[in-house]
């Protein structure tokens, strides 16, 4: 296999407030390969967005990367001087933010906000930047893009704004795109068009994609590999097919309860909410909600078990073969 384009190791983030420390992302490690689409799935509040921000060192105080490393092109992004970091952000690694209603500057035109991303990284004329902007807006299905450059965000619907943010990530043909629930506000046709566009980029340009979502069914048709996140931890990771066909972690199976699969009876709906991340867990973070938890799960913390590309953090994995 090729060298990973991004290598994350032991990444932890925390938010410090009034002497209390919330550990939001807990010891996340993974490798991302060129051309790969990696899905990250989990309920709301599991720390997916914060992990995405941490990958680009975009956390603002009181949130910060507490430990771990994010290696890109031989450099650790979490320790890079600002100017080097700036050269990577939006250029080699682009991020699509979750909420398009607040991520665009309300008083600058769409055209300016997109063109500036080109001009910040490429030594090109305004005309060339504009041409590129129009090109990517076409890719995400915005009609008559050249005429819309002078529009302000409030003149666009939520879905249109989301497409603008997605198109912006395409501008500099990055090595990596981190997409944080980017298609939630889009209708099905546009969503399909954008997924196809992303898959094409991954296949043709070798762009690696980290696609964050709470929707397992969307990822099943898009991702090569899926990481399941719960309470800031990776609880299961593996190829999309194996995760869907043979989930090991009860949480993974519970997430898939939402996917209708012909011939399979509907699985139990997940009850309750993810835990408060202010405290520490004595045992498995999922134990209180787990349908197959035993006493042991409440006391001992499970470690990740399996191969580097396929593993789960569970004392009693669902697949026979994985049980130790």
């Amino acid at each position, binding site marked *: 296999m090729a060298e990973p384009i991004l290598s994350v190791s032991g990444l932890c983030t925390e938010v410090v407030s009034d002497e209390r420390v919330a550990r939001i992302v807990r010891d996340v490690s993974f490798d991302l390969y060129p051309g790969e689409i990696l899905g990250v799935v989990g309920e709301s509040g599991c720390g997916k967005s914060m992990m995405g921000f941490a990958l680009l060192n975009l956390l*603002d105080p009181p949130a910060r990367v507490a430990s771990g490393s994010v290696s890109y092109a031989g450099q650790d992004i979490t320790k890079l001087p600002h100017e080097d970091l700036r050269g990577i*952000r*939006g250029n080699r690694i682009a991020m699509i933010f979750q909420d398009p209603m607040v991520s665009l500057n309300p008083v*600058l035109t769409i055209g300016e906000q997109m063109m500036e991303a080109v001009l*910040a990284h490429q030594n090109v004329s305004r005309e060339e930047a504009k041409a590129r902007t129009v090109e990517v807006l076409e890719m995400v299905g915005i009609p008559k893009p050249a005429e819309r450059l002078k529009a302000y965000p409030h003149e666009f619907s939520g879905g249109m704004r989301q497409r603008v943010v997605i198109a912006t990530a395409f501008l500099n043909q990055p090595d990596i795109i981190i997409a944080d629930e980017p298609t939630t506000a889009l209708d099905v046709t546009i969503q399909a068009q954008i997924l196809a566009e992303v898959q094409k980029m991954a296949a043709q340009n070798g762009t690696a994609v980290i696609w964050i979502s709470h929707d397992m069914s969307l990822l099943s048709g898009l991702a090569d590999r899926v990481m399941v996140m719960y309470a800031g931890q990776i609880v299961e990771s593996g190829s999309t097919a194996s995760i869907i066909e043979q989930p090991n972690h009860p949480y993974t199976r519970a997430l898939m309860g939402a996917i209708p699969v012909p011939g399979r009876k509907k699985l139990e709906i997940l009850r309750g909410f993810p835990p408060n991340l202010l405290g520490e867990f004595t045992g498995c973070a999922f134990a209180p909600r787990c349908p197959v938890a035993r006493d042991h799960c409440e006391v001992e913390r499970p470690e990740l078990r399996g191969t580097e590309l396929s593993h789960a953090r569970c004392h009693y994995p669902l697949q026979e073969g994985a049980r130790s």
Partner: protein
Amino acid sequence: MAAYLFQRLIQAIFVLLLVSLLIFMGVYAIGDPIELLVSPDSTVEDIERARAALGLDQPIWTQYRIYLVGLLQGDLGDSFVYNQPTIQLILQRLPATVELGLVAFLFALLMGIPLGLVAGYYADKWADHAIMNGSIFAFSLPNFWQGLLFILLFSVWLNWLPAGDRGEVDQFLGVSSSLATADGWRHIFLPAFNLALFNAALIVRLTRSSIQEVMSSEYIRYARAKGISNRRILLRHAFRNIQIPLVTVLGLELGNLLAYGIITETVFDWPGMGQLLINSIRLNDRPVIVGYLLVVVAMFILINVVVDVLYTLLDPRIKISGSKS
């Protein structure tokens, strides 16, 4: 836009009428000016004659009606004291006050906005602390005392700048102004600086807190994620957003600088409207007091309209329409 401006014009006329009535009543309540106007050894007959000549023997409604009829023709009446048309008195002194106010406003902007941007951007760093502590001085030391201090320092000890009066004037944009001559600029520097300091401190604080708020918003984080330079993020993304709250306050400040520079005018012996107002109040020179205040109200209304128009230029989400408000 035209509908809006027309509507504002109608509003302005109503406001001015109302204000004229209120001031007229208020000034009437202060007392009969005649005792201050005639010499102490005048006979009762002299006083009655003077009273009749000024129209003060009429009932107040008649007096107001006569004033109003004049006002609608653009006549603010004659000063009791100077025996000159009020409008002429005001127009003689208006340029001095306006130029002082405008220069002070310019100074306040040039000091306040850059310092506020720095303080907000480096919040809680040493630069911020230095600027904020400095602004406390400008805030809390009495304005006239600062003025006296400047005179002592720059005029008396260092002898760099003149301490008072207006200096040479020349034609500037069609009015006679000190801004047309170097000597005029030397004269205006200290009083304008003195007048500007308090307002600059206010602008610093507003700019700082607005910048701090904007810098924590999601679109700034997104701009950083795009790899935009810090400079551009501050000066384009953040600054463009705080211009709206800034313009609101700047409009009010400009009004205050133009209308209430009285203390500074007194300290620096500046021949503006401030002195005229103080004299008129002392002698209860009714037409001048009412006329001055009407001019001030008109300036405030004008500034408000300019601020409203600026809003629409600064914030694409705001549209002016004739029907609104």
